[in-house]
């Protein structure tokens, strides 16, 4: 029975897809397929819209699918670009003002709230992707006590999601949160007598992880080879050059010039007033400022050397100030040929696919190199190139092995966006998602993010040369705990349940219940909402047959049918790999 239903359904669906405006099978939930004048640029089907929103937002829901179909990609991008940024820091400050003790919990609340509800969805999604590039983590003792400063750091990523990479790189570099996380804060010039020399931490990671990477790349992100081996982008001399650059930065408003004393360098406070007056940590929220006598000015500094590099042989002569050296060094990084494919690859892997073709990376890198107006580093143009590329917008064949494993956080976000998950008071007390997801915003174990972009699980994927970054946190433990966690969110935490507390985030299953009596319609609805209509016939039929065999006598039965369907989808291999 199931097989017949699905094949019939598929025939009619494919007609609907081909002849965009043809009548569809189940009016009601397919309303968007028939009700619009299609924008010339698309999307031309609900499935296309849902697929795009899976890549560009924290998850599709019926309203966002309908809206995108109504306005088309171009208007949607314009709307998102014009949408005011939703900031995380004010949420924490409001809680503080309300007398709530603010810890990292509050920052996690803000992440969920904005991820699920903020209208600037593209910005929030890109900011999340950037938070996995310019990594800081509350697992570091240096910043774990600074939730507001970390929220402010996240807002920097939100604000610059469509901004310029060069500007973002500088703001990241001078943010005290990054300064503490990678110890550029109070980094000082060489003192031979004390055998002290500049800290190399930030110098190393800004190059390896934020910008150019370890090996030279061609314009499409493929490593260049010499004698069959990759070519290092830089060496220890370069690290030391940058380590010297990144010296002499301290809290804003410390004495900056030669009048300062060493104890002021060491002990000048993080704010203009004494603890516990409000504002005693105000300098956490503003860029670090230079103190020249601790900056390694005299040394000439080996920076990156590459064809057409502005500085002769990549060497920055001595004599600069902390700020002028920093600007020169960031320009030196920004103009390195690796940056465009490096950033392109990162954004593609976070938003669309684990194994993009080199041509796709090359096209996105082109947009980074030149946004069409001669500007390099335009992240808005780069993001648009990622999402509107034909490789992103064409549903790949199954056998191409395209797609990516959904990040754990985005699975839960998807559920809550699709089913309007919220608590009565609007708060999202999802404080420790990492306990069961192995992931939470700005909470990676190290600066290497939750996973490396080139991670390949041992076994078939390695043999086939397929990257799967997210598999690095997909362990025997997390596959089970994620499935269980999603299960409790759909089986236990639903609006109206007598067993939930007002603080619990609950999903709204009421709009789903009318579909429960018709398993084909029910599964079709979730095929769109959760899987962009990529569900295999086998999976469709398996779910239909399973749901059809469940009782359907009353509301509780129908709710059970809905819950079973959603949970089985969200814990399946087909859902887990978005295509």
């Amino acid at each position, binding site marked *: 029975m199931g097989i017949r239903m699905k094949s019939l359904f598929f025939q009619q669906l494919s007609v609907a897809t081909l002849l965009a405006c043809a009548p569809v099978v189940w009016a009601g939930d397919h309303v968007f397929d028939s009700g619009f004048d299609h924008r010339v640029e698309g999307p031309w089907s609900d499935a296309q819209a849902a697929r795009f929103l899976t890549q560009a937002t924290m998850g599709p829901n019926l309203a966002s699918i309908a809206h995108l179909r109504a306005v088309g990609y171009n208007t949607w991008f314009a709307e998102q670009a014009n949408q005011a940024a939703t900031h995380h820091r004010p949420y924490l400050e409001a809680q503080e003002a309300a007398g709530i003790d603010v810890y990292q919990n509050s920052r996690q609340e803000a992440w969920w709230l904005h991820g699920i509800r903020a209208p600037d969805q593209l910005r929030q999604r890109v900011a999340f992707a950037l938070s996995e590039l310019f990594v800081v983590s509350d697992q570091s*003792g*240096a910043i774990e006590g600074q939730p507001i400063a970390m929220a402010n750091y996240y807002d920097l990523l939100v604000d610059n999601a469509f901004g310029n990479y060069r500007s973002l790189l500088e703001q990241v570099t001078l943010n005290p949160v990054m300064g503490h996380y*990678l*110890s550029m804060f*109070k980094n000082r010039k060489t003192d031979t007598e*004390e*055998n*002290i*020399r500049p*800290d*190399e*931490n930030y110098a*190393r990671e800004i190059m390896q992880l934020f910008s150019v990477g*370890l090996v030279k790349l061609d314009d499409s992100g493929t490593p260049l080879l010499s004698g069959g*081996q*990759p070519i*290092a982008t830089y060496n*220890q001399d370069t*690290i030391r050059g940058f380590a010297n650059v990144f010296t002499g930065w301290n809290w804003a408003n410390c004495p900056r010039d030669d009048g300062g004393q060493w104890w002021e360098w060491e002990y000048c406070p993080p704010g203009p007033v004494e603890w516990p007056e409000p504002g005693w940590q105000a300098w956490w929220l503003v860029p670090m400022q230079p103190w020249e006598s601790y900056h390694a000015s005299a040394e000439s500094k080996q920076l990156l050397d590459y064809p057409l590099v502005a500085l002769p042989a990549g060497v920055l002569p001595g004599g600069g100030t902390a700020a002028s050296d920093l600007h020169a060094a960031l320009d030196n990084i920004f103009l390195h040929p690796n940056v465009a494919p490096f950033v392109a690859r990162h954004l593609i892997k976070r938003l669309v696919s684990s194994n993009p073709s080199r041509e796709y990376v090359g096209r996105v890198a082109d947009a980074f190199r030149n946004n069409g107006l001669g500007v390099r580093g335009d992240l808005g143009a780069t993001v648009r190139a990622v999402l509107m590329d034909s490789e992103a917008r064409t549903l790949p064949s199954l*056998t191409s*092995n395209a*797609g*990516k*494993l959904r990040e754990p956080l985005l699975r839960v976000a998807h559920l809550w966006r699709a089913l309007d998950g919220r608590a009565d008071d609007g708060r999202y007390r999802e404080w420790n998602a990492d306990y069961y997801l*192995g992931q939470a915003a700005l909470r990676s*174990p*190290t600066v*290497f993010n939750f996973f490396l972009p080139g*991670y390949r699980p*041992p*076994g*078939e*994927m*390695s*043999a086939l040369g397929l990257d*799967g970054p997210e*598999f690095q*946190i997909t*362990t*025997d*433990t997390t*596959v*089970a705990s994620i*499935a*269980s966690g999603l*299960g409790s969110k759909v089986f236990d935490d639903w609006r109206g349940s007598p067993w939930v507390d007002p603080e619990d985030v609950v999903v709204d299953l009421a709009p789903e219940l009318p579909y429960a009596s018709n398993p084909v319609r029910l599964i079709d609805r979730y095929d769109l909402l959760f899987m962009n209509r990529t569900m295999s016939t*086998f999976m469709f039929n*398996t*779910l239909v047959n*399973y749901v059809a*065999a469940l009782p359907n006598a009353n509301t509780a039965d129908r709710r059970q049918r809905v819950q*079973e369907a959603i949970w*089985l989808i969200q*814990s*399946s*291999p*087909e859902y*887990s*790999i978005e*295509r």
Partner: protein
Amino acid sequence: MKRREFIQRALCATASSALFTGFAGKLSLAHAAATAGGRLLGNDYRALVCVYLYGGNDAFNMLVPTSTAGYAEYQAARGELALPLGDLLTLNPSVAPVGNGTFGLSPSMPLLRNLFNQAQSPLAITTNVGPLLYPITKAQYQAGSVPVPAQLFSHSDQSVTWQQNRADAQDRRGWGGRLADMFYQTNTNQQLSMNISIDGENVFQAGDNVFPYFVGQNGAEGIDLVQPWNPERRAAFIALRDASLQNALQRQFASVMRRSMNNEVMINDALDGETPLATAFPDTHLGRQLQMIARLINARNPLQMQRQIFFVGLGGFDTHDNQLADQADCFAELDGALAAFHAATVEMSLANAVTTFTASEFGRTTSVNGDGTDHGWGSHHLIMGGAVNGRRIYGTPPSLAVGGPDDADWGQIIPTTSVDQYAATLARWYGVPASDMSTVFPNIGRFATSNLGFMSNS
């Protein structure tokens, strides 16, 4: 990769994780897939435990020279980071180390100091180990005349290099995985991987035929929603999981889910049935991990395991800042957890069968950057177990002199012992015959010896 080779690997992966294949079928598949071949089935037990110190442990503040000249050199290099001489815990090695130096241990490691100094000591230290392609001198390093591993001083790369122990390899297989490829057939139980990690993904344990299995600090994680009390839902779940999937990423996800579910019942049943150990473990990240390993070893008979390799990890060693306080905390955690783990192996009468060793991507610079240190190269490591020839300091303790003969530059110390040698010494104890050593460690022939002597011969 030849197509045939790939097919064989895919088969092995399937075989080792398929619950519903008959045992005889699995065994014959495993035998058919064997390439190393010829391992004798043993009825004894042996386990290696890798304690990975994430971030690059500054062992130059773990093992500190205490002779007048040695301490002066150390103090000159370390400045404000120098541990006071009077605070160091005296080590009394039974044989003087190379160079006849005297050493003290960090004051945060009193339990390990006691283990080291005791008669029949189960604790040894190997000095100045690091990834190398060839033996190398300072002059050769500075002239660039002898190749060195790519991307020295990078966390991610040296972490992989340490765990692969094939500094020039392109794959991401570790030497624990290669050992397991040789020994996994020894285990009666062919369903459970012989490589178990309590601290998630790592390169060390990944082989060609054997992939690490992950257990949490409290045991294996199950999915309540698919337990047998709901056979219909379970059947639907398994149907979706085991469907014929055309996308390799989908298959990979399904295979992890399958392995997780199949092993969970077996492991938790075995853990539930064990007689609890009396040894108390500290309630720390590393303490809980090592306690789970002790429990798994205690359940080795119901689990039918004869050869195992475990992996645990402790973060926080990347001490660019605030090193004195942060590292003291890390060392104290290491001290308590290692000592408890050794006591548990004694309680199980398995001290001679379990060898624990530290690994870390690199040491740190002898020079300081204010209140921390940067990424170095060579470092010291601990080896613990009843089969260890303890109370000895192996290798060649380096000069810590600023600009001295071992200082590559800026206090990055050139290793005098390669990770290959360190690992081969452990592998030899584990049962790898000398004739097979170059299979596991292809570069081992480049170094003076494959046996550093810290393991007993048995």
